[in-house]
C-alpha cells in the first residue's frame, strides 16, 4: 500500500491536517512536540486506499531530540511526503523543505495556516513559490478544512525536483533568495492577544498570569468535576443503577459466591458504592461515577491550555526551578500531561533531548505526579476528613518530587541541555476542536481503564474468596504497622495499586482508617509503584535496567515519605 508521510516543523498543524485528510481524529495542540510517536490513518485516493502517517515535527533532517529521530527514521519507509509548512514562518520552514527536496521521494507542499498570513500582513505568491521549489504548493487551513480538497487533488502531481545546493550555507542562501521573491510584508495592527503575549513575557506579568491561570484551572477542574458527580453521576447511579442491582441481588438470594462477586457485600441491606466492592457495584462506580467526572473536567481544562498556547510560556517561567532537578522548563509539559494519566506524560518525555533528562522526568512523573483517576479518589476519600488532609498528600508529593529531582540531578550521569523552544502565538481555541479532543481522551479512558478496573475488582473478589490476602497481610504486617502505622489490611490496597490506583484508594474506604492513616496510605499508594500500564510504558521508554532503577527509587521514596508522615503527623 502506498504510504504518505506528513512531515514538517513542530506546531505547524500536521496533526490537524491528518485528522482532516483521514477522518481519524488524533490529539492536536498549540505547542511544539504534541506528537511524539506516529499515527496511521487511511485515505481513499481514486480507487486506491492509501496509508497516511502523522510524523512528529522536526526542524531539520539532522535530528536533535528523540521525537525528531522518529521522524527522520520514518522518512525511509514513505512513498510520498506532504511537507506541511507554516505560511507565517516561511523562511524557517523552507529549511526543512529544501532538505526534503534532496531526498529521492516525491514532495508536495501544504502551505498551512494560510488564514493567519492575511491578518499578519504577509503576502505570498504561491505560483512563484511553486515554480521556484519545483513541486506543487497548496494553501491550506487545516483546522477549518479550507484547501484540503485542493491538496488531495494535487497529490498525484508530487515529484522529486532537481535541487542543487551543497551544504547548509548554500541552502540558507537559496532560501533567502526564494523568500525575497515570493513574500512581501505589509503593515498589520496588533491584535488583543498579541498584547496578551507581551504581558505574559514580562516578569511580573508572567508570574501573575501563571498564578491566575493555575488557580483558575484548579478551581474550574474541582467545580466541574464535583458538579458532574453531584448532579449527573450520583443521581444516575442512585435512580437507575441501584434499583436494577437490588433486583439482581434478590434474584441471587442476597448472598453467596456470585452475589459476592457481582454485587459484593450489602451494607445494612443496601448497596454502598464505596464499600460493597462487587463487579457491578463498586467496579462500575469507581471508573464511571467517581473518576470519569474528573477526567472530563481535567481534560477540558488541559485542552484549552494546550490550544491557547499557554504551556510553553509556563515552561519558560518554570525553567530555573526545573534546572535544579536536572531538567529544563519544557519538561513541565510531560509533567502536566502526567496529571491526566502518567502514560502519555511519560511518552511525552521524548521531547527532551538527553537520556538523563528523560530518566529523571519519567521517574519524577511516576513518583510525584498523581493521575486524574488517583486524584479523583484522593479528593473523594481523603477530602471527607477535610481539605487540609488532601493538601498534606499533595504537599508530600510535591516535596518528594523536588527532593528526588534534586538528588537525581546530582546522582544521574549525563548532561542536561538548556531550553531552546519556539513559543507559539496565542490562538483562540476552536470549540469544535476542544470538544473533539476531549471526546478522544474520555473515550480513551473508558476504553482502556474500564476493563482493567473491572478485571481488578474481579481478581480482588476471587482472591478474597480464596483467602489469599490474609496470608499476604500477615507477611507485610511488620512493615505496615511499625513503619507506616497502618493496619495490616491496607496491604491489599497496596497490592491492588500495581493494577489500578483508583481501585486501590477505593479499597481503603471500608477499612475505617483515621485521617492520618488515610494521608499516609494515599501518599504511599501514589508514590510507591506505577500502575501496570505506566510500568509497561516506563519499560518501553527507559529500557529494563533504568526501569528497575526507577522502581527501586519509587519504593524507597514511598517508604521514607510514609514513615516520615507517620512520625510527624
Amino acid at each position, binding site marked *: 500500500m502506498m504510504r504518505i508521510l506528513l512531515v514538517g516543523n513542530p506546531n505547524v498543524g500536521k496533526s490537524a491536517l491528518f485528522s482532516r485528510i483521514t477522518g481519524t481524529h488524533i490529539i492536536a495542540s498549540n505547542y511544539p512536540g504534541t506528537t511524539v510517536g506516529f499515527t496511521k490513518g487511511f485515505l481513499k485516493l481514486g480507487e486506491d486506499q492509501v496509508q497516511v502517517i502523522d510524523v512528529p515535527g522536526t526542524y*531539520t533532517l539532522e535530528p536533535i531530540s528523540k521525537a525528531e529521530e522518529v521522524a527522520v527514521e520514518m522518512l525511509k519507509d514513505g512513498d510520498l511526503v506532504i511537507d506541511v509548512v507554516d505560511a507565517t514562518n516561511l523562511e524557517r520552514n523552507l*529549511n526543512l523543505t529544501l532538505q526534503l527536496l534532496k531526498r529521492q521521494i516525491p514532495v508536495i507542499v501544504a502551505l498551512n495556516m494560510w488564514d493567519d498570513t492575511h491578518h499578519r500582513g504577509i503576502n505570498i505568491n504561491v505560483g512563484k513559490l511553486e515554480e521556484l521549489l519545483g513541486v506543487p504548493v497548496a494553501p491550506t487551513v487545516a483546522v477549518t478544512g479550507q484547501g484540503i480538497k485542493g491538496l488531495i487533488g494535487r497529490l498525484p502531481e508530487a515529484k522529486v525536483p532537481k535541487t542543487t545546493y551543497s551544504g547548509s550555507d548554500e541552502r540558507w542562501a537559496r532560501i533567502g533568495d526564494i523568500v525575497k521573491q515570493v513574500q512581501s510584508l505589509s503593515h498589520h495592527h496588533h491584535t488583543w492577544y498579541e498584547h496578551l503575549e507581551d504581558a505574559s513575557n514580562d516578569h511580573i506579568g508572567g508570574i501573575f498570569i501563571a498564578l491566575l491561570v493555575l488557580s483558575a484551572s484548579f478551581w474550574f477542574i474541582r467545580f466541574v468535576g464535583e458538579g458532574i458527580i453531584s448532579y449527573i453521576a450520583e443521581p444516575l447511579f442512585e435512580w437507575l443503577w441501584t434499583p436494577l442491582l437490588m433486583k439482581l441481588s434478590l434474584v441471587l438470594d442476597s448472598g453467596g459466591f456470585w452475589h459476592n462477586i457481582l454485587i459484593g457485600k450489602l451494607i445494612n441491606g443496601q448497596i454502598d458504592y464505596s464499600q460493597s466492592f462487587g463487579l457491578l457495584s463498586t467496579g462500575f462506580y469507581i471508573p464511571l461515577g467517581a473518576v470519569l467526572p474528573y477526567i472530563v473536567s481535567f481534560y477540558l481544562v488541559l485542552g484549552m491550555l494546550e490550544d491557547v498556547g499557554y504551556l510553553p510560556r509556563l515552561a519558560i517561567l518554570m*525553567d530555573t526551578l526545573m534546572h535544579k532537578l536536572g531538567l529544563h522548563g519544557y519538561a513541565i509539559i510531560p509533567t502536566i500531561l502526567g496529571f491526566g494519566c502518567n502514560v502519555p506524560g511519560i511518552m511525552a518525555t521524548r521531547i527532551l533531548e538527553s537520556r538523563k533528562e528523560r530518566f529523571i522526568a519519567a521517574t519524577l512523573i511516576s513518583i510525584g505526579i498523581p493521575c486524574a483517576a488517583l486524584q479523583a479518589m484522593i479528593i473523594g476519600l481523603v477530602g471527607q476528613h477535610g481539605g487540609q488532609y488532601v493538601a498534606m498528600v499533595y504537599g508530600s508529593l510535591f516535596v518528594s518530587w523536588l527532593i528526588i529531582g534534586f538528588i537525581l540531578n546530582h546522582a544521574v550521569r549525563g548532561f542536561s541541555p538548556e531550553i531552546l523552544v519556539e513559543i507559539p502565538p496565542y490562538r483562540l481555541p476552536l470549540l469544535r476542536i476542544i470538544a473533539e479532543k476531549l471526546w478522544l481522551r474520555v473515550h480513551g479512558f473508558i476504553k482502556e481503564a474500564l476493563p482493567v478496573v473491572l478485571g481488578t475488582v474481579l481478581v480482588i473478589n476471587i482472591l478474597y474468596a480464596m483467602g489469599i490476602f490474609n496470608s499476604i497481610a500477615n507477611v507485610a504486617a511488620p512493615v505496615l504497622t511499625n513503619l507506616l502505622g497502618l493496619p495490616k489490611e491496607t496491604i491489599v490496597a497496596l497490592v491492588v495499586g500495581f493494577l489500578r490506583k483508583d481501585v486501590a484508594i477505593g479499597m481503603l474506604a471500608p477499612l475505617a482508617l483515621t485521617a492520618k492513616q488515610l494521608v499516609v496510605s494515599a501518599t504511599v499508594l501514589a508514590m510507591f509503584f506505577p500502575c501496570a500500564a505506566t510500568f509497561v510504558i516506563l519499560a518501553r521508554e527507559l529500557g529494563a535496567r533504568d526501569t528497575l532503577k526507577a522502581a527501586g527509587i519509587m519504593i524507597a521514596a514511598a517508604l521514607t515519605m510514609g514513615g516520615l508522615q507517620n512520625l510527624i503527623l
Partner: protein
Amino acid sequence: MAMYPGEQIPLRQMNIGQTGTVIRILGGRGLMLRLEALDIRPGKKVTKISSTFLRGPVTLRVDNTQVAVGFGMANKIIVKIDQFLPGNFAGR
C-alpha cells in the same frame, strides 16, 4: 547598560526591545545546529523580547516566531546592535 549602535554584545546583555544582527555563535557544532534549526544563525536579525529572573531563559523574536533560549545559550549568541533604543519604549 547603555548600548551604542554597532556594539557587539551577547544576546543576554541586550535591552528589552532592542534589535540586532547575529554575528557569531560561540559554541560547538551541536549548538550551532540547534540554533540554526530555529533560524537563529549569523546574519539574522533578532529582537529581544524579554528575560526571566534568576538566570532564566531569554525570549527573542526571529521573523514571525518567538523563541526562548536558555540563559547560557543567550550568552553565546553574539549580536551587533542595530540601532539605539531606550529599553522599555521599544516596539517590536
